[in-house]
């Protein structure tokens, strides 16, 4: 999510889907099939259910903000300016957090919240239940960054993208892994598409299950990608705490730019975010 040079990533998508599919022996488009996974049991250690009155900002004991336009649109020529205004980020009073991208003429506002410095953890299950925004140029994401980013910089810190979506393809998400030697357009990534539905019309649970030498990617408990230590063409940097980020970007190199036909405002509706430790 963080740096530029992502436009060329698309060229790798197909190939990588095939590779990971072969590795796992499953195809990401056959959502009906039964998977036999090892049994894992979990205990929730951190969560935000986003209960509270409408218009409230998210719990400051759990979340902090990235604000403004970053450097070169957060590294991706993104258009939005992030705020901590309730019109961009607030509880909806129905147990959800809404991160809403808004258009003012040709300028855009949105929000990006993170647990950096508040909650950071290595390994476990990181999940969010949510509905995405849609429309050309919308780019919602749920992702993790290595907590040592300020010491070693990106991509050495590692980046785990649990999900990101291009608003002009509202039925498909991608899960990715960026690290030293395999970042930006060379990230390891896989797509997951709904057979006949959209990520904005129903809630879906996006999760990773992260162990010492693997990261499994799930949509609604369907495993669509496993990345193991041996799969990465560089250093495996996922043995340290990471923090979580939720954001809705507008425009940028990954998604392209909004058009006059992109509907605004566009909310991402997040029912909960939970982090669990493995108990078996």
């Amino acid at each position, binding site marked *: 999510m963080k740096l530029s040079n992502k436009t060329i990533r698309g060229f790798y998508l197909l190939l990588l889907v095939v590779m990971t599919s072969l590795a796992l022996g499953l195809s990401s488009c056959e959502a009906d099939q039964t998977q036999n996974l090892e049994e894992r049991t979990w205990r929730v250690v951190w969560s935000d259910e986003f209960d509270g009155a*409408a218009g409230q900002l998210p719990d400051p004991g759990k979340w902090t903000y990235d604000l403004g336009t970053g450097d070169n649109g957060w590294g991706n020529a993104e258009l939005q300016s992030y705020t901590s205004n309730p019109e961009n980020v607030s509880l909806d009073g129905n147990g959800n957090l809404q991160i809403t991208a808004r258009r*003012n003429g*040709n300028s855009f506002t949105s929000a990006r919240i993170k647990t950096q410095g508040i909650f950071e953890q290595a390994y476990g299950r990181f999940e969010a239940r949510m509905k995405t925004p849609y429309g050309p140029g919308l780019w919602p994401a749920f992702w993790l960054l290595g907590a040592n980013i300020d010491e070693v910089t990106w991509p050495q810190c590692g980046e785990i993208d649990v999900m990101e979506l291009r608003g002009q393809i509202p039925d498909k998400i991608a899960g990715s892994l960026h690290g030293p030697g395999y970042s930006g357009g060379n990230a390891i990534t896989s797509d997951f598409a709904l057979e006949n539905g959209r990520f904005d019309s129903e809630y879906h649970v996006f999760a990773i299950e992260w162990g010492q030498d693997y990261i499994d990617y799930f949509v609604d408990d369907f495993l669509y990608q496993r990345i193991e230590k041996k799969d990465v063409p560089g250093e495996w940097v996922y043995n340290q705490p990471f923090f979580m980020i939720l954001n809705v970007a507008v425009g940028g190199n990954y998604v392209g730019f909004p058009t006059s036909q992109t509907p605004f405002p566009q909310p991402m509706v997040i029912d909960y975010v939970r982090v669990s430790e493995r108990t078996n």
Partner: protein
Amino acid sequence: MKKRFNQLRAALLFAALFFGMGCERELEELELATFPTNAEVFIDGFPGDLNYAAFGGSAVGAFDVDTEVKYAGTTSMKFAVPDFEDPAGAYAGGAFFLTGGRDLSGYNVLTFWARATQAANIDIVGIGNDLGGNNFQASVEGLAINTNWQKYYIPIPDPSKLTQERGMFFYSEGPENGRGYTFWIDEMKFEKLGTVVAVNSGIFNGENLTQTVETGATFRADGFAVFNLPTGINQRVNAAPSYFTYTSSNPSVASVDATGAVTVLDAGTATITATLGGEPAVGSLAITSTGDPILPSTPAPTPTVPSADVISIFSNAYTNVPVDFYNGFWQFSTTQSANVQVVPGDDIIRYSQLNFVGIQFTAPTIDARAVNRIHLDIWTPDPTALPATFKVLLVDLGPDGAFGGNDDVSHEVTITSPVLQTQQWVSIDLPLSAFPGLTSRANLAQIVLSGDLPNVFMDNLYLYNGDGGGSGGGSEPTMAAPTPTRPAANVISLFSDAYNDVPVDTWRTDWSAATFEDVNIAGNATKKYSMLDFVGIETVANQVDAADMSHLHLDVWSGDFTSFSIKLVDFGPDGGFGGGDDVEHQIDFATPAQGQWISYDIPLSDFTGLTTRSNIAQYILVGQPTGATTVFVDNIYFYRTGGGGNPTEPATAAPAPTRPAANVISLFSDAYTDVPVDTWRTDWSAATFEDVTVAGNAAKKYSMLDFVGIETVANQVDATDMTHLHLDAWSADFTSFSIKLVDFGADGGFGGGDDVEHQIDFPMPAQAQWVSYDIPLSDFTGLTTRANLAQYILVAQPSGGATVFVDNLYFYGSGGGGNPTSPVAAAPTPTTAAANVISLFSDAYTDVPVDTWRTDWSAAVLEDINVAGNATKKYSMLDFVGIETVANQVDATAMTHFRIDVWSADFTTFGIKLVDFGPDGAFGGGDDVEHQVNFTTPAQRQWISYDIPLSDFTGLTRRANIAQYILVGQPTGATTIFVDNVYFRN
């Protein structure tokens, strides 16, 4: 503009192309309890039972199956759109329909792939046109296609309704910029896509309408639905009213049926709302019924004119001629009609919700030459004090007896108080001479009633001969011919009480075929010729030298002529008959108006065979029916228009333009290269047009001018960089002159919701001299865009009686330098009544409290400045600015429009967002709604008055707590705008 005579002729022309007749019929199909559910419409051919019918007036051969261009498989559907005015048909359009039906309830979208030979917008594509009730029609307008194959979606508003649908697909597309092209469609099928999701829906265009009517009024809902497509963009679908489920809040006041037909039943109030697929639709109709209609308590006066003198269109006193309809339900007409009786046997037509209504009689048309008056009785419960009007328009189809053909004529008469009276019968009885624009009336076909009275009861509509005197029309005029007004110095008169006449040898040569009398009409000497075939009048002894004259005038009256001609004979330099130098020319007038004085002013240049006119010696008048015609003649004289008299045409050319060509876009001028103009007289114009030469200079002449349309639709003019419109006009008789500019907006097409226009009136223009108009385009305040100028409408008064010469029609700019960066003039002063306004900022009204004109989260600099004495807000370095009324939120529920005046020298885009904080009155809370309306390429350096229907703010579904107004300009952060007159109105 004024296209209402051309009602949509929706008749369908069956091209009778049937496909796939080889489908095997199985026994079960004869007893289907449900309908088949197959999805395919066209893959590589049509399924059985699918028929195609081309729409009426379309190019019947537009559709074909193509084996060369296809998206997949072996064939595609090819649609050849014709050129503008293609004799085979003006557009491509038709419907693909089944004889039986299909159950499509398991699908939610019709999909297909399409491409075209050029980028284009298909006017309309859709489903549900079954050539019958079209109950479940759903369509997409302006579908953008290009030269690449792309997939397209037509979402079904509510698939559960389509259990036996016959209309599989229909389309209609006209030329793009006047030229035809071809598009292909392939792989058309119904699908159930989870990637097409409903966003919202609405009735009455999403507006909350209010109507005050009488019991018995009816309305019809219309609907739309918005879906988000798999590409993430929203698609609006026009949805037939039957897709919706309607509710009346008070069914005893207003009922609504499943087709969206609303009927007002009793006094009271009721609101009509709807749901689509169980979800509430936006938009509503709030009806206030004033109760039972106020009916006339007495019948209309019984006509007394003998039936022999009457051509009756609607009356129980006479036998009516065949009438096509008393209400054509023309496009944009809201008029309802019903027959009522206040005494048995006496029918009255009740028109309600009257804006305009057409009465038509074309089978056959009425030959009204033998009558001279029109009569109708009306009764209205509505206020009739000035300025309320009631208008009667007569339309004649001209000699061709058909609509169009450049020979249709019409004239409208406006009736006001004191003739109009409330709640009493008023007899409107007018001489047809009051309709001077109706220059022929042998093929009278329409009477159009309009005006300000929503409720009109009408009876005894007939034409009649007001001279009594038995059948066959009046035999002689009751009034004298009009008195001439031209100065004697410019006249050579043969016969007139107004001038000294030159000697005339005889008013009837002995070789004439006519009877001649000198008679007296209303005290005025007049020549009467009866049993006329032709008559010769001679000035052989004192030949007339008309070399300096420009026109021949004569006044003619006849109750029975069907044609009239006049021939002039010049004996040439030898002054004698024969000798090889005689010249002559005859001019014929077909179907002249009967029973009224007709003033002929004939340019001598029209007598093209009359190559000399210094020895005019004979004047021959000819009438038909041959030998059976009676004609009265008065005021025969030659006159000239130049030289200090009262000229009727300019003697000098218009001033030659001097502006550098580089700064000019010329439509018509000898000085510049002109851009293409489609027509100098559209067929909906009310004027006669000629190309003429004035002192060697080409000019446009409009006579009998009411209004004329000039069009550059095919090559629209981009006057964005221009500052002024120039036009030279000359008229001897206009009393008012107007020019209207119409811009077709970004879509480049008529309609589409983005057309803007503005008319500027010049009362009391100087007559008989060239008047040069240099009009700042900024004066055309309603013309908020001018990149697609397509129509130029000239209007003059007296309506239908003015002759105007036009030259040097062009736009010009200042061409660099002196481009102002701030307005010199103040914004236009609002004219809406204060009672109908909630003002935020204006000198014209009391403003409501505004928290701030620049919130601290704005990206703009604000100054309060003064423009020509008028307080104005100036925003510079504008990206966006927030204005807030949070402390005193505005309840705009009773308002219909948001108005703001804006001036900028540099903006390229302007946006206005309104934010309503919802019932909680606070920011956030999940009930905030907002919508932004954007204007691209707004006109620069002029005040633009944006008067935006609140219904355009479609996302602003509430407006009782409006708290924020956000103005946005581009180029971002580099725009300066001036703002005045910010208010809501209704």
